[in-house]
């Protein structure tokens, strides 16, 4: 993992001193709320419904055990003993006092962490594949590039007051686990003749006007990476709309300007900017790459594991759903589900964080990842240790075998916390997960991603859920709209609206009918919900969702 040097450390200490002074100046009136708000946002501080919220960056989703223990400590010392892991590889604390936040930031700095640019109209925390450095299908570890971009974007003098937020994701594998096509810039590492380069995708985004990003560069050379993304942001900073915040994201600029014209502008800007990089960033990059070499994996054959796997059914089920192929076949990637049915998706208590930290140290080479699916990953676990790990997780409600299944739901905080929400998301997720868990048909249903947002901003990625649920406010009552057929991977697709929304009470029965319909029309248990949807289209699902309408049309 990246090791902070003196520069990084003193940068953060200095930044924290500035924020401490900014809080004091807000309180003494030197700064108006309008002036203070962008400053607090660029340090991760939101105002939610009940309190402030502090959003802490987990750059490219990587943590070590000391950092996770510190997150647990911060939750206990200044918050309510838990944290919420988000789809953007951040952790959110829901109850901090403004006056405590400078202390919380100092506590983060003690373990080389921060909340810089986790919010506001800035370049946000750069996200990456949560299996980075471990996945069997990886071309190159995306994290060194994400770290380079983190350094470049941190406190970038031109880009602290952008038209709107700007999000970058990097993926280095064949499978896109970083949703690169739904980011302002998505970077995908590709390989040609033994060299790597980047496919650059721009203008993706969810929210009010969801769009799948467009490829603007194929195989961008590594040493052009920073000047090229600087050119993109520079062009957008001047061109992006500032008159309407709903039209300010680069996806709208690309849409209104046209991809060819914007590409020409970016290329021209790139030529201007390129000479201002002396190339020294590449030697920094090389030392970052060295930091990310990864642990030396234990060389020990696998035998016990197979016996356990064959004899213990619950363990086998957990292995089948919660582990993924590691580049070294004696190891596995383990996903620890934060989605026990009935629990708030993505929440972990301080006690759970500490257990995971201990287990990462004991069985996982001290490496931990946070996934955008709001789960925690131990990227390197020797197969001989899997059974012991499973047994140790179980007492802490951390051994739920549901990764990728219907109860592994992504949900934003919704109206329970968020000031922008139009409806709740958490209780909906809890109901759906509990319902299908009780029926014991989750494994039979198979791979199915349900994603829930509490308003049109789409923080819960509902547009790219196989089943997306969007909570709205219809005349003062919560109402839920269903989209179908979304896909967050390299074959990214926006879901299509199924029809009129459902009340909170009618939603679960509707989802239940939808699943029953899928089970009856799929070709075989091997055909996933998404595949079935792609084969048959909306018709059978619509019929299940709206049986009355169907009868009416027939009668008419």
């Amino acid at each position, binding site marked *: 993992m990246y090791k902070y040097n003196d*520069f990084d450390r*003193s*940068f953060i200490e*200095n*930044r924290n001193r*500035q924020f401490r*002074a*900014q809080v004091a*100046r807000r309180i003494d*009136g*030197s*700064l*108006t709320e*309008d*002036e203070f708000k*962008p*400053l607090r946002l660029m340090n991760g501080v939101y105002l939610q419904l009940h309190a402030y919220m502090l959003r802490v960056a987990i750059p490219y989703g990587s943590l070590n055990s000391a950092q996770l223990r510190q997150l647990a400590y911060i939750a206990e010392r200044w918050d309510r003993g838990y944290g919420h892991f988000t789809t953007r590889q951040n952790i959110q604390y829901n109850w901090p006092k403004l006056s405590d936040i400078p202390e919380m930031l100092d506590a983060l700095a003690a373990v080389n962490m921060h909340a810089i640019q986790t919010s506001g*109209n800035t370049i946000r925390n750069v996200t990456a594949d949560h299996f980075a450095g471990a996945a069997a299908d990886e071309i190159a570890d995306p994290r060194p590039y994400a770290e*380079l971009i983190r*350094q*470049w974007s*941190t*406190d*970038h*003098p*031109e*880009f*602290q*007051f*952008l038209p709107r937020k700007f999000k970058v994701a990097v993926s280095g594998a064949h499978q896109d686990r970083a949703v690169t096509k739904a980011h302002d810039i998505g970077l995908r590492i590709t390989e040609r003749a033994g060299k790597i380069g980047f496919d650059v995708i721009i203008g993706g985004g969810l929210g009010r006007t969801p769009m799948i990003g467009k490829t603007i560069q194929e195989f961008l050379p590594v040493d052009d990476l*920073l000047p090229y993304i600087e050119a993109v942001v*520079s062009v957008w*900073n*001047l061109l992006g709309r*500032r008159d309407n915040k709903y039209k300010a994201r680069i996806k709208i600029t690309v849409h209104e300007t046209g991809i060819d014209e914007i590409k020409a502008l970016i290329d021209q800007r790139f030529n*201007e*900017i390129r*000479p*201002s*990089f*002396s*190339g*020294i*960033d590449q030697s*920094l990059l090389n030392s970052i790459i060295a930091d990310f070499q990864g642990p030396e994996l234990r060389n020990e054959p696998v035998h016990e594991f197979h016996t356990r796997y064959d004899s213990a059914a619950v363990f086998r089920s957990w292995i089948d759903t919660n582990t993924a192929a590691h580049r070294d076949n004696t190891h596995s990637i383990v996903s620890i589900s934060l989605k026990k049915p009935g629990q708030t998706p993505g929440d972990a208590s301080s006690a759970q964080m500490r257990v995971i930290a201990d287990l990462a140290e004991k069985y996982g080479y001290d490496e931990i990842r946070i996934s955008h699916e709001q789960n925690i990953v131990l990227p390197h676990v020797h197969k001989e240790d899997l059974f012991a790990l499973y047994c140790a997780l179980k007492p802490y409600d951390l051994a739920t075998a549901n990764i990728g299944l219907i109860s592994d739901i992504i949900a934003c905080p919704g109206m329970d916390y968020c000031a922008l929400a139009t409806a709740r998301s958490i209780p909906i997720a809890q109901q759906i997960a509990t319902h299908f868990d009780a029926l014991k048909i989750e494994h039979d249903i198979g791979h199915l991603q349900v994603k829930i947002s509490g308003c049109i901003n789409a923080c819960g990625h509902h547009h790219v859920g196989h089943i997306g649920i969007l909570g709205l406010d219809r005349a003062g009552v919560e109402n839920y709209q269903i989209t179908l057929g979304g896909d967050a991977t390299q074959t990214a697709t926006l879901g299509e609206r199924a029809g009129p929304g459902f009340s909170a009470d009618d939603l679960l029965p509707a989802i239940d009918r939808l699943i029953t319909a899928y089970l009856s029309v799929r070709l075989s248990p091997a055909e996933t919900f998404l595949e079935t949807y792609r084969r048959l289209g909306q018709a059978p699902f619509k019929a299940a969702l709206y049986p009355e309408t169907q009868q009416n049309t027939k009668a008419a």
Partner: protein
Amino acid sequence: MSQLINDTGFVPNDITTPFVTLDHWTTGCALQLTSDTDPNDLDRILSAPCIRIEFPTSADGRGFTLARLLRLRGYKGHLRAFGHVIADQFAMARRSGFDDVEIHDTVARRQPHDQWLFRTDWQDHDYQSRLRGDRSPIQSAQNTL
């Protein structure tokens, strides 16, 4: 009225000639640019002795990119950020290529001298200069002043 700030803190305004807008500008005049200036217009004004870029609100960050583009295109004159700029933006302004900042008195009253001095350490803790090396045109342009 307004207050000028440079690396030494609050200083008296040394430019007394009037600033003219782009429409009325001719060579030799001090020029005032709005934050929505088309970057294509920058090429023909590189001979201006002094350019002041307006910040209508502190949330409008276009001026930083305009300043940087001017420096990248070889502008060697005096570059000033003008309007609603807050102390917290002093380092950003200097790093983007501005020489100094001129603010309204109302802001100066709320954000006195010491709050600006706190941010005159703009050359420290700067990821950009680390990542670019010493080839940054921002530095070279200013050093020739």
